[in-house]
């Protein structure tokens, strides 16, 4: 039945306990609009918003990537340069090095997050006193905004007043103001890895916890009957059955860290020099400091296609986990 006319009750329908005016209001039929039209009316605002804030800027950016637009000289006529911006980026050693820096950041931070997150999940999976309280405490960092995290870690890592340097000096004996975690070439890359791991290891813990809770108890009971040691149970049951979830966590965190901008920009702004300059910071500098809009649009497209491709793999992995 396509029309809405039959959805509401006819005029003569009576309901126990319903007053006369209310009955006449509900009994009014809606005519002329099909179910499909009504569905479109509800969906249309969302589609319009999506087109305005997602699709249109994307299409506009693709267009700009083929031009030589420089916003600091926007009075110049827009010149079509074909694939020149893409060629410039893909032969530029600086961008290549920034991508390697990004990859190193992704590899180390995801490795630490998975190791710590999985360890925490194994601990939290045991029932103990104060279990819920400690779970909440561990989850707190991932609930904070990256801007907040960036700001308060900047304070914590201050060489003169920050408690982090004092803590390190307590264990190592090195004077607190003799080193700067965000200002030294050898320490700054590890600082952004440390802060990102602190923030996102709880998220990996949550995913791993879901994986651990999905393992049926009877498998462990069967292993107990076979006199399998705890170590053997971990390698033969726990780890293999949690691997799909770990893969999911790795892919998700890798995609997120590849796009990382806000926290690193607040902590180090890509410095000292360009030691921690991730490709997203290079993009920001090209677009809003050098005003090379055409060039930065092309770089944004390269990053977009990379993330989109990785997201396809992520969705495929997610479907495999769902099928379990």
């Amino acid at each position, binding site marked *: 039945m396509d029309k809405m006319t039959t959805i509401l009750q006819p005029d003569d329908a009576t309901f126990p306990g319903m007053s006369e005016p209310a009955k006449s209001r509900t009994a009014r039929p809606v005519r002329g609009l099909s179910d499909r039209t009504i569905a479109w009316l509800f969906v249309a605002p969302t589609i319009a918003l999506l087109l305005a804030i997602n699709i249109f800027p994307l299409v506009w950016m693709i267009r700009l990537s083929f031009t030589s637009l420089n916003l600091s000289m926007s009075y110049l006529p827009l010149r079509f340069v074909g694939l020149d911006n*893409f060629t410039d980026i*893909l*032969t530029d*050693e600086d961008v*290549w090095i920034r*991508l*390697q820096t*990004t*990859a190193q950041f992704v590899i180390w931070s995801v490795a630490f997050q998975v190791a710590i997150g999985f360890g925490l999940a194994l601990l939290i999976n045991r029932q103990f006193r104060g279990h819920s309280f400690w779970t909440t405490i561990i989850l707190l960092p991932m609930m904070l905004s990256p801007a907040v995290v960036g700001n308060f870690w900047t304070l914590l890592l201050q060489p003169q007043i920050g408690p982090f340097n004092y803590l390190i000096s307590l264990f190592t004996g090195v004077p607190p103001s003799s080193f700067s975690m965000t200002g030294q070439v050898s320490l700054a890359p590890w600082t952004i890895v440390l802060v990102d791991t602190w923030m996102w290891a709880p998220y990996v813990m949550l995913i791993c916890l879901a994986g651990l809770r999905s393992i049926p108890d009877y498998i462990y009971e069967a292993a107990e009957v076979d006199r399998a040691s705890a170590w053997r149970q971990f390698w033969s049951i726990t780890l293999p059955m949690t691997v799909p979830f770990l893969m999911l966590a790795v892919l998700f965190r890798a995609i997120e860290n590849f796009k990382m901008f806000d926290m690193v920009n607040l902590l180090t702004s890509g410095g000292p020099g360009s030691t921690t300059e991730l490709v997203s910071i290079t993009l920001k500098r090209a677009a809003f400091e050098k005003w090379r809009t055409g060039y930065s649009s092309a770089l944004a497209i*390269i990053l977009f*296609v*990379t993330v*989109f*491709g*990785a997201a*396809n*793999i992520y969705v*495929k992995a997610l479907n495999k986990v769902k099928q379990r």
Partner: protein
Amino acid sequence: MSGSAAIAKGVVSRWFRRGPWETAAMTLIGGGIVMLVQPWSIDLYSYSFVTILAGTLGYVVVSHFPE
């Protein structure tokens, strides 16, 4: 259904299965990402975007193949 149509359908179902093509597209995407961030050859870096783009577009196409 005529014989030639059945053969054609058999060929399509044998060659255009989603599983292996999706795996190939994902391998192309993964290989392209490795090419993009590896520190050894700038030539590999230069061809990385084309590889990722081919893999991504290929994935979009082959994900519509029958199971």
